[in-house]
């Protein structure tokens, strides 16, 4: 079929492999070889293609193509059968009233190439089909390489960040990590905490500054390696005594800081401090011998601070820590109320009856009256794991260091027995109570500031886990 004046159909097909010539009544007069791969052997326009644009309305499709050809408007035709490939192009009107369209693929090119299994030879060299496919593929390859690279960078950044916030010796947070934890805790107070934890965060947080007593002696006598071992042991104690959401930091030397969201109750804090001190006081076996240290703790609670004053919390906790040191070490000083009243708390180091024979050294702060020595559940404390439970249990000596030094029993005497099981589980490592008693000697001036607490509640170690 001769398509155009002077050009054979075959030549037209080679020149325009995607052309379509339609008579004014819709018969397909000529179609390029590539277009034939798409429309098949159809003989009539209406059998294979629908005119998408210009919108035909009620007009005969072939007529709208003629109109578009006359006006130079773009034409969009779509395959009636799946995959409903859209072809776009423009046309010109022949003398015989037929329309010659040159069609091409738009953005659906890749899809059509795949579906109709087209090759380089199916496209005219004037087109940019190969370039487009090349770009499509090259782009994807580069993006994939880039996203691998990004994933690696991300992992490295995370690792670097972890390193930057971690103390390499103990694995605890370092000073930077501590700052971040404090900021997070303060954000929590302003109601921007972790979703789902908002309640606990809003309840406030406590800050415990801890400093080892007697560490320098170990470090100086037995060397840094021994000191490092000891610091690692202390870090393990602190990690064991804290919850998942708490931050434990070693900002430097033998100082440790605990940030404990939601933990603000005085009894719970005192119990925690005493438990930590007792556990740190357990001798640590080192190649050179047993190292015995203790710890002093300063405690501040965010609920005692009006909004803008939070910044001084760390400083106050530090002051409290040194107050605890001045008061004889091996104890905690908790600041209470807006006036930061100092409440001294000291663990009970009195031996349980079963083990009392071994206690050669008088325990620090053991009350003269001996009211604390009798455990309420006396009969069961017969050494081993059970004895340890008792050892870890805490007698609280409370002191209001305000002015007169009047003993204040209230704080210590009203504590409730809430966590017997947890306490036992934590300490059931079979160590004898006697092991943890003689630290007082190492600390030296430990007994001086101790005020009796007749309450002696054989503190049942409220678990730190709320």
């Amino acid at each position: 079929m001769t398509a155009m004046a002077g050009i054979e159909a075959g030549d037209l097909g080679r020149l325009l492999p995607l052309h379509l010539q339609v008579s004014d009544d819709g018969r397909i007069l000529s179609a390029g070889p590539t277009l034939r791969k798409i429309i098949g052997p159809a003989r009539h326009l209406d059998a294979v293609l629908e005119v998408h644009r210009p919108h035909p309305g009620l007009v005969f499709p072939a007529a709208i193509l003629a109109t578009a050809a006359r006006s130079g408007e773009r034409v969009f035709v779509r395959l009636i059968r799946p995959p409903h490939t859209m072809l776009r192009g423009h046309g010109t009107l022949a003398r015989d009233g037929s329309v010659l369209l040159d069609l091409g693929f738009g953005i659906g090119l890749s899809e059509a190439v795949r579906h109709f299994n087209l090759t380089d030879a199916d496209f005219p060299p004037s087109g940019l089909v190969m370039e487009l496919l090349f770009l499509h593929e090259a782009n994807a390859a580069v993006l994939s390489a880039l996203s691998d690279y990004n994933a690696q960078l991300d992992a490295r950044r995370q690792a670097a960040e972890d390193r930057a916030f971690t103390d390499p010796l103990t694995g605890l947070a370092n000073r930077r990590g501590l700052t971040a934890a404090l900021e997070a805790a303060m954000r929590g107070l302003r109601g921007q905490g972790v979703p789902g934890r908002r309640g606990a965060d809003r309840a406030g947080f406590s800050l415990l500054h801890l400093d080892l007593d007697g560490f320098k002696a170990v470090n100086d006598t037995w060397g840094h390696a021994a000191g490092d071992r000891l610091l690692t042991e202390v870090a393990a104690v602190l990690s064991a005594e804290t919850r998942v959401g708490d931050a434990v930091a070693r900002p430097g030397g033998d100082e440790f800081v605990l940030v404990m969201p939601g933990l603000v109750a005085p009894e719970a804090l005192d119990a925690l401090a005493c438990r930590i001190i007792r556990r740190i006081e357990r001798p640590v076996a080192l190649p050179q011998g047993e190292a015995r240290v203790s710890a002093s703790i300063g405690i501040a609670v965010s609920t005692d601070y009006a909004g803008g004053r939070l910044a001084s919390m760390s400083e106050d906790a530090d002051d409290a820590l040194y107050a605890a040191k001045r008061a004889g070490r091996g104890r905690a000083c908790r600041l209470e109320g807006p006036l930061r009243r100092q409440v001294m708390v000291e663990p009970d180091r009195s031996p349980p009856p079963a083990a009392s024979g071994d206690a050669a050294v008088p325990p620090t702060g053991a009350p003269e009256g001996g009211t604390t020595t009798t455990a309420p559940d006396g009969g069961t404390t017969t050494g081993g794991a059970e004895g340890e439970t008792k050892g870890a249990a805490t007698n609280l000596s409370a002191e209001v260091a305000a002015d007169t030094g009047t003993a204040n029993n209230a704080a210590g005497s009203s504590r409730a027995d809430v966590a017997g099981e947890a306490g036992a589980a934590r300490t059931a490592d079979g160590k004898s109570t006697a092991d943890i008693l003689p630290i007082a000697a190492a600390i030296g001036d430990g007994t001086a500031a101790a005020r009796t607490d007749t309450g002696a509640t054989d503190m049942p170690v409220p678990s730190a886990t709320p």
Partner: protein
Amino acid sequence: MHGLINRSLERFVRDGYGDAAWLDVAARAGVEEGRFEGFRSYPDALTLRVVQVSGERLAKPAAELLEDLGAWLARTEPIRRLLRFSGSDFADFILALEELPGRVGMVLPDLALPRIAVATTGSGQFQVSVGSALPEWRSVLAGMMRAMSDDYGALALIIDEGRHIAVDVSDETFCEGRDFDLWAGVDSLKVARR
């Protein structure tokens, strides 16, 4: 040199000679952390040092090693496909080498491949020259061209004559070339996206 070029070098050594060989090369050449990142830039001197050390370690002249690298690149499927987009037969491919740096530049503008010039010296005969002071490029290109002549199934003589690479395509359809379906890439992209 672009990180992707260095990374290709690393992958080539790892692939052909094992991770231990690469780590040895990297340590001797002073490659940071024993690996190259794809999207960083490295000093040319480091790249050249890696080439030199690799040659020593693998007991191969540098030029031979680089030709192997070029062939290895051309056999790497995504790269092979991208190269095949350049021409429908091998002679076509050789002529289109002039466009190669431009094509690469469209996707990786900072890769900075040297200019490639192709002169036709007779029927199926070409001289390919590389516009770079580094002869290393020519070795890589020669190796790549050899691998691509196999890929197209063409019989061609490819000789690095120093100033240029001489190509003599004696039989365009010497044996069956490897498949190149335009759409295979489209499909693999879909899989990758999933």
